[in-house]
Structures are given as structure tokens and as C-alpha cells.
């Protein structure tokens, strides 16, 4: 027990215990929770939140916030679906540009990265507070989605694309593989690279980082661009899973992502937290959502309970900080 405790920080350890108690309680109270089907169902559902939350963790580690991930998710999903379904016609050049699944997915990721980069640029170059800059992007990206889709879903995207959201590989659902790759990459990025150390340093003390010669603007722009790319990954997964890009997809997903990050022990003031903690946070939210549905709790109460859990997590985090 002590060696596990050494490896994980206090918050992660508490998250792990909370997850264990939650699972134990649900296993005792419901018949369907401890089944293989439900396990993969929960894992598939949390995959999207894991992708967004990992990006959100990077942003919060730099003491920022990104409220636009839900809208970026919707827009990137719509762009991918639209290009795959309709391509681009340029009548003036008598040219039709068709997109393969790879091309549409890359375009979606590129758009996500671009919108994230704009967030980062506004924050670093124009000194717009992250809350305001990403709030503006939240509205703009939602508007772009409505313009692109004309308010209608785009569906019928084909089996190859659908495989990304509904397929299985080596007995594991594809969304779980994809979110797993995202998590491992982010763990390596934050723990083993100079870029990762810069992220922690900027969040810990921005002035000291500046004096140490860390390229703060460049790092922050990349962080927001990465958050955009990961939101796009989430958008592609949602679209592939539903075989349809919904104009209102990703609504309030940013809140679930922030909740996962906070529950996972990442400090909202930056500089402290881990990707693993965020994954635990996302799993707790996913299990909680699933459990509340299995227990037939009213959707209105579900929101209240989720809110209380987030509040509790922040209170525990604050008391941990004091004791440290």
C-alpha cells in the first residue's frame, strides 16, 4: 500500500479510493454494473471525455482554461463528416476535391489545431484572459458548426469511418484504443520531454519561467493548439460512433472535462497535476454517470450529484494543499 502511495500523489490516491468505493457500491446496489458489456460501455463513453480532458489538463497546468473544447469538438466532427460526405466543389475551376477517411480525419484535426492555436494566439499576443478568449471561441465555433451544417445532422458516413467509433480491435473497442494512445502520448509528453517541463514551470511560476528563458508564448500556443486537436479527436470519435455529425454535439462537454481534471487532482491555479489523475477523474465521472443511470436516478438529480462531487473534489484538493 505504501509503495502505491509513493508512486501516486495524494489526490490520485484519494481518487483511486473514491473510484474503488464507487464501483463497490454500484456492484452491490445494481445487477448490471459488474458485467463485461457494461464495462466496455462505460469505457467507450468515457473515451471522448478522456481525450478532451487530457487537452484540458495541459491547459490547466499552464494556469489557463479552455471553455471552447465542446464547440471545437462539434465543429471538427462536422467538418470531418461534411468533407467525407460531400467533398469540396469549386465550380470556377471545374474541380471537385474528394476526401478519403484519412483526409477527412486529418482535416478535422487540422481545424481543431487551428482553432486552438487562435485561442493561444489571442491569449499570449493580445493578453486576452483565457476565460474570455476561449469563451469567445466557444460561441464562434458553435456558430461555424451551424453555418457548416445549416443546422442539420450530416450522416451516412460509411463503414470505414464508423469503425473508428464502433469497431473493435483485439477485443477492445476502437475509441478505447484511440483514447489510450492519447493518454500514453500525453504522459510521455508531460513527464519525459522538455516541453512537458516547460508546461509545469509556466503554471508553477510564470515570472520565474520568463526569467529562466522559457518561450512562454510559444509553449502556451502549442498547448492550446493541442487542446484543440484533442477536442477534434473527441469530435471524430463522437461522429464515428453515431455515424452522424450533430450540430449540437459536445454541448457542455467542457464542464465534464474540467470536472475530470479537478477530480483528478490537477490544481486550477496551474503547475500541479498529472495526466493519470485526469484519467482517473474521467473514469470516476463516467462510472458515476453510468451508476446513476443504472440506479434510475432522475436526470435532474444526476446533475446535482455530479456538481456536489466536483465541489467535494475541490474542497479536498484545497485541504491537501494546506497540509502540504
Amino acid at each position, binding site marked *: 500500500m505504501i509503495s502505491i502511495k509513493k508512486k501516486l500523489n495524494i489526490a490520485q490516491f484519494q481518487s483511486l479510493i473514491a473510484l474503488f468505493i464507487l464501483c463497490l457500491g454500484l456492484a452491490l446496489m445494481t445487477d448490471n454494473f459488474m458485467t463485461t458489456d457494461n464495462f466496455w460501455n462505460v469505457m467507450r463513453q468515457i473515451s471522448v471525455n478522456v481525450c478532451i480532458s487530457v487537452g484540458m489538463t495541459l491547459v490547466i497546468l499552464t494556469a489557463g482554461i479552455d471553455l471552447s473544447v465542446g464547440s471545437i469538438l462539434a465543429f471538427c466532427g462536422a467538418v470531418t463528416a461534411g468533407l467525407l460526405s460531400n467533398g469540396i466543389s469549386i465550380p470556377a475551376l471545374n*474541380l*471537385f476535391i474528394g476526401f478519403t477517411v*484519412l*483526409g477527412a480525419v486529418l482535416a478535422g484535426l487540422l481545424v481543431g489545431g487551428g482553432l486552438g492555436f487562435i485561442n493561444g494566439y489571442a491569449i499570449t499576443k493580445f493578453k486576452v484572459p483565457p476565460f474570455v478568449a476561449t469563451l469567445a471561441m466557444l460561441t464562434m465555433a458553435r456558430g461555424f458548426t451551424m453555418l457548416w451544417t445549416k443546422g*442539420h445532422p450530416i*450522416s*451516412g458516413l460509411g463503414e470505414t469511418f464508423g469503425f473508428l467509433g464502433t469497431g473493435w480491435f483485439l477485443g477492445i473497442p476502437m475509441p478505447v484504443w484511440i483514447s489510450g494512445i492519447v493518454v500514453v502520448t500525453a504522459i510521455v509528453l508531460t513527464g519525459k520531454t522538455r516541453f512537458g517541463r516547460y508546461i509545469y514551470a509556466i503554471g508553477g511560476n510564470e515570472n520565474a519561467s520568463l526569467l529562466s528563458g522559457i518561450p512562454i508564448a510559444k509553449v502556451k500556443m502549442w498547448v492550446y493548439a493541442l487542446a484543440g486537436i484533442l477536442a477534434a479527436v473527441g469530435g471524430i470519435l463522437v461522429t464515428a460512433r453515431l455515424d452522424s455529425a450533430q450540430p449540437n454535439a459536445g454541448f457542455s462537454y467542457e464542464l465534464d472535462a474540467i470536472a475530470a481534471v479537478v477530480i483528478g487532482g490537477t490544481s486550477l491555479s496551474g503547475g500541479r497535476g498529472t495526466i493519470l489523475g485526469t484519467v482517473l477523474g474521467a473514469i470516476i465521472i463516467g462510472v458515476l454517470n453510468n451508476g446513476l443511470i443504472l440506479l434510475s436516478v432522475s436526470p435532474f438529480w444526476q446533475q446535482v450529484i455530479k456538481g456536489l462531487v466536483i465541489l467535494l473534489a475541490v474542497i479536498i484538493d484545497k485541504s491537501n494543499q494546506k497540509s502540504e
Partner: protein
Amino acid sequence: MNRKAIKYSIGILVIGLLGYNSVYFQPLDKKLADGNEISFDAKAYVDGIWSNELMKVYKDAPDIALLIDSLEQNTVAAFETYGYALGIGNIGYFRVQGEGLVTAVNNNNVLLQVGSHVIEVETEFVYGNAIRDASGLVKLNDYDNSSDFNSISESINEKIRKELIPEFRSKVKIGDKVRFEGAIELNKAHLKLSQIEVIPITLQITE
């Protein structure tokens, strides 16, 4: 060759390979001639079915007062008999017709008194799929993609907004008698019959 040159060469190669496998180009006229989805002209399609098909099915629409009575007596049976639904769910679309007295001319709608019922005829927010889906003429499976399918509704609604509403709005006043045909959208689980919203396809001031 130094390390930087190797790095850039590999980068360009990867981008080239990804690009090659990502997009394909075709002359637009050939694509249109192939009868592919981008050749679908929703406006022309709607113009084509407007008089001979769409108007015809709406001429046979049930009377709105009778429909409301049926819905009140047995909702499920009324949905099955008169309603159209795209898939599984509680939403149903209904063709309706009737005649009523104008009691209010608002910015967004005109209120009609039809028997004991108040009917709201939409004149501003003519959106959605009610006219298309209530007609029963257009099926999702007949189209290669949802974009084409959705564009039919857009064209129908645009035609109503441009060709029907302006003339009606310029003439209608309180006390007029108005005959209408149109479509309504109802939710089986949350049936609200107190003020039904009709998307019109014909509007005629009779007195």
C-alpha cells in the same frame, strides 16, 4: 547530408504520402454527370414536385379540428392513422387543413380561431422538416446522404418564406377568414394541443 536535411526530407515525404492518400481530384462536370450526390439540385426537385405531388397530398389533409379530437380521444391511434415519423421516437408529423377567423396578427405568426381551438400559423420561423416529413413523399433511404435529404426541407421552407408568406402578410388583418393547409409537429410523450403551431403551405383569405 546533415541531420536537419534528413529531418526535413522525412517530413516532406510523410506529408506527401498523407496528402496523396487523403484527397482525390476530379473534374466537377464529370462528377455532376456521374449523377453523384453533389449533382442533386434540391430547388429543382422541389419545383418539380410542388404542384403535382406536394400540393396534391396536402389537399387531402385531414381537418385540423377532427385531428385534434382524434388525438385527444386516442393519441396512439391518431399518431398511427394520421402521423408520419422518420424513425423510432415520439415525434410525429401531420398534414392538416382548416379554416379559421384571424384573432391576432403578430410579428412571428397569425392566430386563428378554428372552432374551439386556437391555431398558430407560423409566418416568420418557417424552418424544420414538418412539411417534407408530413407529406410522406420523401424518404431518407432514397438519398445517398442526409445533406441532400435536408436540402429538400430547406428548399421547401425557402419557397414558403419567399412565395407564400409575404403576400399573405401584406393582406391579412384581424377578422379575416383564412383557409390553410400545412403541417404540424407533435410529441407523443408531451402532447400539447392548446395552441398548435402550423407551418403553412397554402394560405388563402376567403372573407
